């Protein structure tokens, strides 16, 4: 599996507000046997996740999602009650509302709950996957790498993202968006660049989770496009070839053709970069016939947007849940560098050759990408030191 299969989801006409274009995705029938619920965390979203004995993930985590594959419709109050754990309070409408103490970290990104339920932290699962890319640091102790790099790897590793509220126009666009019947997902475009894709298994889940998009994280590029971009041109449909229309049925089929043309145009034009890329999938959890994955893009440069994300797929690989995050160019560069270095066993010259440049250039790039701490202080990109230190052979 290396692609996203959005079969069963049809793009409906987009709704534009300012620079934001929202494309609804509609399912003919909801995915059987999987529901998603949201649980809201208090403490203004400050969250810590315990990843392992020594690793912690700190971020803004306003809510988590609970996947329920027990087959119930999720409205069964007993099912909700089963998830009650320490620190959990019940809301007015029997909704479980987790209230972790601020000092109490989340345990793991995805955690099994009693019954057929899995709690995971949307988007953070994917972001953590990106941050943990070759997190262990150099696998071979070449002399250029600093002692910190050899001991701690890339730790601490940080990336920036913007909250949906601070993406200009997004909150308004989501507020006035008119949800389609049967809608199970949405593609968010900012200045007609794909910012995020969000898919859930059931329309009822979507209706509840629609507003949560404003609390998601968006990449730097998305924020800048929203801030500096002009309003997206609305493209009203045109019915061409009107001289061949002789009756109402002709007019009706011409109108239907417009709807189909849009759906086709969206999949091939707008969402191509998401659907046509091949991803490295990493299995997080298997729940019955569904599997929770997170994925990383190929980190190739100059090929449009690159998205990380997480997805739940059914047994045939069709997407039941999807959430993506668009990486900024700097983030793609970092991923690309780390991939190349790891592929070259962290040997600078081999990596430089793989990149088609020389060692000096690679060192410069590493430092520019914010990985200075990995290199020893003496390793310079100035020529005379580079001349002095040949590779250890």
């Amino acid at each position, binding site marked *: 599996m290396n692609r996203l299969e959005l079969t069963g989801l049809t793009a*409906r*006409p*987009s*709704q*534009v507000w300012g620079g934001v274009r929202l494309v*609804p995705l509609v399912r003919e029938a909801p995915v059987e046997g999987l529901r998603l619920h949201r649980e809201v965390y208090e403490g203004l979203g400050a969250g810590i996740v315990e990843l392992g004995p020594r690793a912690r993930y700190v971020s803004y985590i306003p809510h988590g999602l609970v996947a329920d594959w027990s087959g119930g419709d999720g409205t069964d109050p007993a099912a909700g009650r089963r998830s009650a754990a320490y620190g959990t309070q019940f809301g007015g409408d029997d909704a479980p509302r987790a209230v972790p103490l601020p000092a109490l970290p989340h345990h793991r990104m995805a955690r099994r709950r009693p019954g057929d339920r899995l709690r995971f932290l949307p988007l953070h699962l994917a972001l953590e996957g990106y941050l943990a890319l070759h997190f262990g640091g150099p696998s071979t102790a070449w002399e250029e790498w600093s002692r910190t790099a050899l001991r701690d790897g890339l730790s601490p590793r940080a990336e920036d993202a913007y909250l949906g509220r601070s993406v200009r126009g997004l909150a308004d666009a989501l507020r*006035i968006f*008119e*949800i*389609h*019947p049967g809608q199970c997902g949405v593609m968010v475009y900012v200045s007609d660049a794909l910012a995020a894709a969000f898919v859930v298994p059931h329309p009822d889940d979507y209706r509840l989770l629609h507003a949560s998009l404003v609390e998601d994280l968006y990449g730097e590029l998305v924020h800048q496009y929203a801030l500096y971009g002009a309003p997206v041109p*609305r*493209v*009203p*449909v*045109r*019915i061409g070839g*009107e*001289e061949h*229309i*002789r*009756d*109402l049925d002709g*007019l*009706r089929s*011409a*109108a239907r053709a*417009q*709807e189909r043309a*849009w759906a086709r145009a969206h999949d091939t034009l707008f969402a191509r970069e998401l659907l046509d890329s091949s991803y490295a999938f990493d299995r997080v959890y298997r729940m019955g016939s569904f599997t929770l994955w997170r994925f990383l893009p190929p980190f190739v440069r100059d090929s449009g947007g690159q998205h990380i994300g997480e997805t739940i797929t059914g047994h045939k690989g069709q997407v039941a849940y999807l959430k993506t995050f668009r990486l900024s160019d700097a983030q793609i560069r970092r991923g690309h560098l780390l991939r190349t270095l790891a592929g070259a066993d962290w040997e600078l010259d081999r990596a430089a050759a793989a990149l088609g440049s020389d060692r000096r250039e690679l060192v410069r790039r590493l430092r520019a990408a914010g990985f200075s701490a990995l290199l020893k202080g003496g390793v310079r990109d100035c020529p005379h030191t580079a001349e002095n230190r040949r590779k250890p052979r």
Partner: protein
Amino acid sequence: MNAPKSVRASAPVPVGADGTVRTEGRVADLVAAEDVLLFVNAAITATGQREFRSGAAEQQLSLDFLHTYVRVNYRRVYAASLALDINHHNAALIVRRLLETAGEASPGELRAEGRLIAARLALLPPPRVYRLFGELRRGKVNNRRTRAIMRDWLAARPDLGHDAVKYRAGLKTVARHIHLPCPEGGGPLAEVGAFLFRPGRLPRYEHGLLDAWRRAHYEQGAVAELPFTVAEGFAAKHGMKREVFLKRAAPGMTRLERLRTQERRAAAGRHGAPAPKADLTVMPLTRLALYVLSLGFEQRAERRAELTGALRAAARRAAGGHAGSWGRVHAVLDDSFSSSGSGQKRRRPLAVALACHHLLEVLAAPGAYRGLWTSGAGDALLVRPWGPTPLGMRILDALEPGADGAAPDRLVIVSDGWDNAPEGLAGEVLRVWRARLDPARRTAVVHVNPVYDAEGFAVRGLAAGVATAGIRDAEDLPALVEIARFAEGRTGTTELYAYLDRRVARFTGAGGEGGVAA
């Protein structure tokens, strides 16, 4: 003091004295007519409140610009629009602007304006007028003419004692502003003067309400005699139970207050004696639709017969002489999510659509009406604002021949004009249909829009060839359709101005006896 002069004379490009119009003059004339319609549509819909897609500040800014633009360029039209079915907010705004800038008008214009203002003030609800007078005072508009207008309006009030209790601050401001003589000694005006300016001096009042107000300070029994808004304050002061108070105050409530507190009183009635129900059949149509939409689905289904009956009765009353005269009518009614309005205008667009649905049913020939909701809902009573706006497809459905196999005579579209599934399809369908399938214009298409689009300075239209009219209350639909005719661009500006003149003459003739002279 004769009939007002033709408003056409105020167009910026004057028509030649011999009646000939130069070519460039005709273009300017068309622009002028467009501006006028733009303003009239805005003045009917915009209330300066938050809408689904824009905030209150945007709305006010946009409206303010339109008012200034029209007042400066077409002053007579600006005044004449008081004679149309514009909403109260804009009526008050126009009156204020006219009085503030009286110096810019000629004596003849002033006379016509005075008559229009007096007639419009008589129709405005008193709180609105008192607020307007307060604004005039704050704006330091105090000249002989303004004072005369206020004095005449006060003189026409049926009972100043009632106003003194209910609009105490407002009346006091006006009395100060116009130097209302409140002599000491006997007489009703003297008592009102004492009540407003020297409270607590008189041991008792002759006027029943004034005395009730005095007694209500220490006697719970007197509270129910007062107007509801005043009584509420006293009830809180005495710590009266809300349900008990509502039941006791019900006879003194206005129609709308009764409707507003109906649910609360019904809850009280469940425990004790049944509370007197508001008589739904006397409510205005759009108000009634708003009330129906405020109820839950179960309640609407339970009271189906009562609610539908009331809606139909109100529609018949609103249609009046027009009933059954529109032939085959098909309607497309917008119940998309955007028809939920805003926190300030809750479900207003949907209520207008629901009211139009019932009104059109009456206006159409018996059995020749078909209403289609954009969501595909079949039951008008159980509509809810939800889903996208596939207006184009619904228009296609509505253009299908009716039960008798004939195309509709009229197609009415009630929508905020945001057609988004897909965008612009409605306009395209209407354009192609008009060009290819109905070039003879057998079917009249009219689009009524309950939402003012602040960015576009107008109500949002669907297509170039389709007339769009603003709407606030569904009751005005027949009159609006008449105005919308001019927006199609086929009737000339002369007709538009003649129409305005007719409306002005009817308006001032009906309600403006003893008009205020400058």
